[in-house]
Structures are given as C-alpha cells and as structure tokens.
C-alpha cells in the first residue's frame, strides 16, 4: 500500500511554506504544483529564465517562446518576470531559491545524490541539476524507493554510498519515496532518519529495501 506518484507529490508539497520560491524538477516533482495548499503563496522558478511560472496552457494557447526547463509549454502569471540563464543560475547558486524538489537515481545516507548519468549508457547531460542541488537552500528528492527493471530485478536506491557518478555531494535534505520519508543532516554527522511511513508499510519493509543506514524517528502520526 505504498504511496502513489500523486501521494508522493502531496507529501513533498508539505515542505512548502508561505512565500517560498521553489524549483520543481521533471516527473513527480512537477505534480507538486497541484498540491500547493489553498491560501499559500508559492512562486515557481524555471531555471531557463522565469520566476512566477503558471500552469500548462489550454489547447491552442501554447506559446513557443514560453517553456519550462523540461521544454514543456507553460503560461505566465501577473507576477512573472523573465531573465537570462546567467541571471537565473545566479539566483539559484546564490541561495535565493528556498526549495528544490527533484528526482534521483540514487541517494546516499550522507546526502550524496546521483541523478544524471549511468556509465556505459549514452549520457544526456546534467542540465541544471548540479547547480540546483548545490545552490538551493533545501533539496527534497522524490523517487521510487527501489528501481525495478523490466526483467524483474530490483536495485536499491537509498545506499551507503552512491555507485553512480554524483550530481552533488552532501546536498539532499529529505527523501520522499513511495514507502516513506527520510531526513538527512547533510552538513552534520548525524545519521539519516526515517520520519514517516507510507500507509501499510512497516519499518521492516523499509529495511528490506534500503541499503543506507538510518535510525527510526517516526512521528506520532505519519
């Protein structure tokens, strides 16, 4: 009874705070914008040069000059501003974005993140991911707890150490998977903590699917 993609997005959305400026990655993170609580003001940054990103356009209202970092058509809002890629990443690198929510291939218990390349496969490039994880104040990873290949093999993704090339070292603050939620003290030496379980998931389920060391720190009501 693990969380669905939408439930994972909804859980990640609970990290939003009023007035936050947020960058959402491709995939499940994009869904987070559907779960911004009513009355809370959150501004979305798109690293290709836009602050105040609006929803996808209605059919027929697409503008080729108005896309997000996933190259999807989007819309603008009354609050929107546009700027160059240099100014956009100055904003990111300078620590002005409060929260980045993005996907991952692997996360290590010390906050290391791998999400851009698999050696031996054609490499597409890191895009803005390395800048985002290095620069944004808080980094939340949303990912499936394990990777299931078509042939049925299962690979763990929460590891002692990433074995894929890193996107960033000690950059992840929180991991939301379909099975639960972990927090990482990325600048400290404390262990990774399991703070929430998805409904019907036990700590033993988590242990069986997790290589990383973690301590239980479950909240009263997950």
């Amino acid at each position, binding site marked *: 009874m693990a969380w669905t993609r939408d439930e994972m997005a909804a859980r990640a959305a609970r990290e939003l705070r009023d007035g936050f400026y947020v960058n959402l990655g491709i995939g499940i993170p994009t869904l987070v914008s559907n779960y911004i609580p009513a009355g809370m003001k959150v501004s979305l940054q*798109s*690293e*290709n*040069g*836009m602050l105040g990103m609006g*929803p*996808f*356009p*209605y*059919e027929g209202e*697409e*503008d*080729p*000059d*108005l*896309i*997000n*970092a*996933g*190259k*999807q*058509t*989007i819309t*603008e809002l009354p609050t929107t501003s*546009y*700027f*160059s*890629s*240099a100014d*956009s*990443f*100055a904003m*990111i*690198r300078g620590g002005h974005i409060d929260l980045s929510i993005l996907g991952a291939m692997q996360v290590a218990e010390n906050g*290391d993140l791998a999400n851009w390349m698999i050696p031996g496969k*054609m*490499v*597409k*490039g*890191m*895009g*803005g*991911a*390395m*800048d985002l994880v*290095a*620069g944004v104040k808080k980094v939340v990873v949303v990912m499936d707890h394990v990777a299931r290949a078509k042939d049925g093999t299962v690979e763990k993704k929460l590891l002692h150490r990433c074995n894929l*090339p*890193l*996107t*960033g*070292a*000690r950059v992840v603050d929180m991991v939301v998977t379909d099975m639960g939620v972990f927090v990482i003290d990325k600048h400290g030496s404390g262990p990774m903590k399991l703070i929430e379980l998805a409904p019907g998931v036990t700590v033993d389920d988590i242990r069986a699917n997790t290589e990383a060391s973690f301590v239980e720190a479950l909240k009263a009501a997950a």
Partner: protein
Amino acid sequence: MQKVYSDAKSALAGVLKDGMTIMSGGFGLCGIPETLIEAIRDSGVKNLTVISNNAGVDGVALGLLLETRQIRKMISSYVGENKIFAQQYLAGELELEFNPQGTLAERIRAGGAGIPAFFTKTGVGTIIAEGKEVRTFDGEEYVMERGLVADLAVVHAWKGDTEGNLIYRKTARNFNPMMATAAKVTVAEVEHLVEPGELNPDAIVTPGVYVKRIVHVKDARKHIEQRTNRKRAAA
C-alpha cells in the same frame, strides 16, 4: 557603420572559418538563431566547436550541423533530444564537453565580462571538478571554472534596432544575452527590426555595443518540443 544586413548569408559573410568556435543561443528549440544556423550549414564551414546549452533536435537547428558533420565538438549541458548526436558521439566522431547549465551560463557571462576564472560550488565532489582547482572559502569548497569566449556568437532576439540594441521575449531570452557579449563577432537575428528610439532604453537587454551585425528574419519559424496542455474546466 551599417550593422543591418539583408539576409543571414550576407550577415555571416567573412566571419566563418573552419575550426572556429561558435556560441549559439537558445534553450531547447526556444530562442534559437535558426536562420543563422541554416546559413552556417549552407556555408559548409566545418570542424566547428559549438557552445550551446543543447544541440537542437534531429533535423532542426544544430541538428542540421550534426547531420552535415560540420561540428567537431559540443560544449553543452544537455543533449538528450538528438539521435544523430548520440550516434556520432558513440562512434567517437564527435567530442563532447558537459558543463552544468549554470556553470555554462556563468562561464559565458564571465568570458564577456573580462573575468578569466571564478569559483562556484556547483560540481564540487563530482566528476565536473576532476582536474580543476578546488578551494575552500569560508569553510565551504568551491571549484574554479574558466571564462568562455568564442570567435562568433549567433543569437536570436525578439526586437532589435539598427544600432544593435536587443530585447528578448519571455523564455526565449535564455543564453542569448550572455553569448552576445562573449564573442569577437556577434550576429543577431531579430523578429522585428525597428529604428533607434523605438525600444524603451530602460528595457534594452543587450546594448548595441555587443552586436556587430543584425538581420531581420520576418518569418522566423518557431518550434514546440513538448506541447503540454491543461484541460479546460467543463462549462
């Protein structure tokens, strides 16, 4: 000092040379100098190093220069959309240097601003930092990155005046303004060519000093890579 050229071919006349380095604006297919790229294709210039965030898609923009094998090396942050790119790269026919997108943008901005090197925390502890100086400032590690310059920059703007002042439209701005500053010669294609005084001087993004040549592309094609819509609420 007439900056306006009648077409892309004449705007590039005399500035193309085998082995040169070209910066090409745009993010994905948004804000790309497509008409100028086609003129580069038609010129037959080869052995190019191209600095561009992406590499176009098959059959469009820089994808054209890949088809004709005019590109020897790409400096980019993401090239996921090109099959032909993957083929040439895996066959060892194409050199590729990945830069984190923000590092790429800043390297170009630095190149244009007379800054030969700067420090960033992007990429520390990753293969991007290998072989580069890593230094600690105020207890945090940073990697040194170099400024980037080019022989030629081709950029796309929404409006330009005959002085070379440029204004961009929405997210089609992206890499164009920095690239305009970082090349020996910058050639701009503009969707609307106006007289001096028609642009708001407080809103000009690229001052004319950066633009040596300008060409009006009246019928600029635009592409959408990922048409994404929301549903209209039921009436």
